């Protein structure tokens, strides 16, 4: 396989093989990856539109039994200062979000040891009654609810949908290989479980996003395996709306001595994802980890979505990163890059 053939294949709109991915990762320079990713992005999104969503992260609890080494957010159940939001607090946050033009809540929390499945059903019913889209409970949480309740995953998903769940965030994927999960997050659901929960939720009609947190202990092959599993599931289910890669933020974590992925490393991985995941419509920039400048540039490296205004964000902030962007600022960055900004919903339909 020659490098030139790989480039021709990509530009001809063909799917790249694993071998080709590894060749690009090892041999292509930043310009080459940018041009290839941008050509795919242009083919998939010929209108020069960059989307964003107005929403708020609500992390209902930071108490978590998973104790992942890359996480700066959680509190162990034995620690005194963990929190669990009350329904009143949830209600207040929803009202604030709606007042700011928000269309959805990204609802995620730690794996709390003490709450039954009924509690989460009530939470959803309560939140849903306020009239907002609930993008909630990543696969590790659903897995956890299943373990605690003794109910099989399909039943848990069915019950959550009945209680008001609208879609599932792609969090907790980290790197979808058991080698990496054993090293960094042994108590979190396995790669197989993550995939099968997503597959089941897609089967039951939920859409979801997919993420990858890279730049810690994984190898090139691990990243490829992650992308391969996502691409295979997307071939089967078509349920993923978007892919969101972001680099591990080491500060305040057990892995704090690892070097943070640089901006060039981020743009390379973003472009490689755009090139490999030919069956994903949307790739999201991560301004929360990269800041506004690099996020704006990522629009030339495969991203067609600016993510969320994140009225509230706690998890990356716990790792010492605190970029803030208003809707107005997002629109300015997008326009300045030569695109038309457009507010969207979770499923990427545009608001009129």
């Amino acid at each position: 396989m020659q490098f030139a053939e790989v480039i021709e294949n990509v530009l001809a709109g063909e799917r790249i093989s694993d071998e080709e991915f590894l060749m690009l990762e090892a041999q292509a320079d930043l310009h080459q990856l940018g041009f290839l990713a941008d050509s795919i992005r242009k083919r998939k999104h010929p209108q020069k539109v960059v989307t964003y969503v107005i929403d708020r992260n609500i992390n209902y609890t930071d108490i978590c039994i998973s104790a992942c080494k890359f996480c700066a957010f959680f509190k162990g159940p034995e620690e005194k200062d963990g929190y669990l939001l009350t329904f009143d607090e949830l209600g207040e946050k929803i009202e604030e979000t709606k007042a700011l033009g928000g269309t959805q809540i990204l609802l995620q929390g730690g794996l709390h040891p003490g709450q039954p499945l009924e509690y989460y059903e009530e939470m959803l019913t309560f939140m849903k009654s306020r009239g907002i889209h609930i993008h909630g409970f990543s696969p590790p949480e659903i897995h956890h609810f299943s373990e605690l309740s003794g109910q099989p995953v399909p039943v848990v998903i069915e019950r959550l949908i009945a209680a008001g769940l609208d879609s599932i965030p792609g969090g907790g994927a980290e790197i979808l290989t058991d080698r990496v999960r054993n090293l960094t997050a042994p108590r979190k659901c396995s790669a197989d479980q993550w995939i099968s929960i997503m597959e089941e939720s897609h089967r039951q009609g939920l859409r979801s996003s997919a993420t990858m947190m890279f730049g810690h202990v994984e190898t090139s092959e691990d990243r490829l395996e992650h992308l391969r599993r996502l691409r295979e599931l997307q071939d089967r289910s078509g349920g993923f709306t978007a892919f969101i890669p972001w680099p591990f933020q080491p500060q305040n974590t057990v892995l704090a001595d690892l070097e943070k992925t640089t901006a060039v490393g981020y743009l390379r991985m973003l472009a490689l994802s755009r090139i490999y995941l030919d069956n994903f419509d949307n790739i999201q920039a991560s301004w929360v980890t990269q800041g506004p400048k690099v996020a704006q540039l990522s629009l030339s490296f495969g991203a067609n979505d600016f993510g969320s205004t994140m009225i509230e964000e706690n998890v990356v902030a716990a790792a010492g990163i605190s970029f803030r962007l208003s809707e107005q600022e997002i629109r300015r960055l997008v326009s300045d890059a030569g695109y038309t900004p457009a507010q969207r919903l979770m499923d990427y339909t545009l608001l009129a």
Partner: protein
Amino acid sequence: MIEKISLYSKSRVNNPAFYFTVENYIVKAGLGSILDKVKAEERLSFDDGLVLYNSNDILALGYLANLVRNRMNADNAYFIYNQHINYSNICTNLCKFCAFGREKGADLAYEMSVEQVKEKVRDRLAEPITEIHMVGGIHPDLPFDYYLELLRGIKEVKSELHIQAFTCVEIAHLSDLVGKSIEQTLEILIDAGLGSLPGGGAEVFSPRIREITCEKKLPGKDWLEVAKIAHKMGMKSNATMLYGHIETMEERLEHLSALRDAQDETDGFLAFIPLSFHPKNTEMSDLSRTTGIDDLKNVAVGRLFLDNFPHIKAYWVMIGPQMAQIALSFGADDMDGTVKEEVITHMAGADTDQAIGSTTLVRLIKEAGRVPVQRDTLYNVIETHN
């Protein structure tokens, strides 16, 4: 111990088929004639510069600038082990874009004694610093001798330090102060230890901009005159442009044209350093900060237009280490240095650190696929980190 596995590779392929494809794309983007000129090493016209500035195709601009950058500097990315000292922020100019300058007696106004400056140098004698970068305001009453003592004092502490100090604006002020010509003033300063001039104070040369933002500052043509006199005496200097406030694209290009013409005449500029405007705490704080694309555009257009400048610097203090790293693929071949104690940009709300370790610089450069080269002020190689 968990070992981190690199996302990067050292071997990059130069593939003709790919470049053919990219060049087709550049032609389609309307940049074909500029591509031809760049490949033929022809000088770009004013209008070419405007086309580049008005393009949003940052990948195409980056590709073009990278051709020139690689031709002039191969894979080298330079940095310096330096120390910044801002001896005083007391200033009679009080430019509207500046958050650093203060009237004498105002809050936060300061001036260092010669002894304090020496102490700052002494504090860091253990470090392999090769350059002191020293600028300040236009002080209303410090005597000429103070400036000579600053230079002599630093040299007393460590004689081998190169002192890059006093912008052309300060030099013109010192010349007034001592009542001698620019050339005579520079001779005295060189004798006291001055090694080269930094590029500050250029802002945007346009009289329109200067009248609105810094009417008391040395006019652009005089700034250039001071630089050229220094060059003709054998001294090197840098050149900057403060972008991202109220200047037009034409004004940016007039600025670059004036620098290019001066360089044709004297060949004394080492590097062009585009400086992004930081509005916070200035009288222009209602303006937005520059975007990533504008930052890269100024690096790329600078590289393409200033064909007679050996180096283009991505100053990490201004645009952040992340953008400076990316800029190494968009025309820049220098990231400035370790800096420490940068005050001017930080008073304008820069959220970058005030110092960066040389190991971090080396890592950023390597991960950008370049070769880190520690240099001295005049771009002599001190160490190549292969």
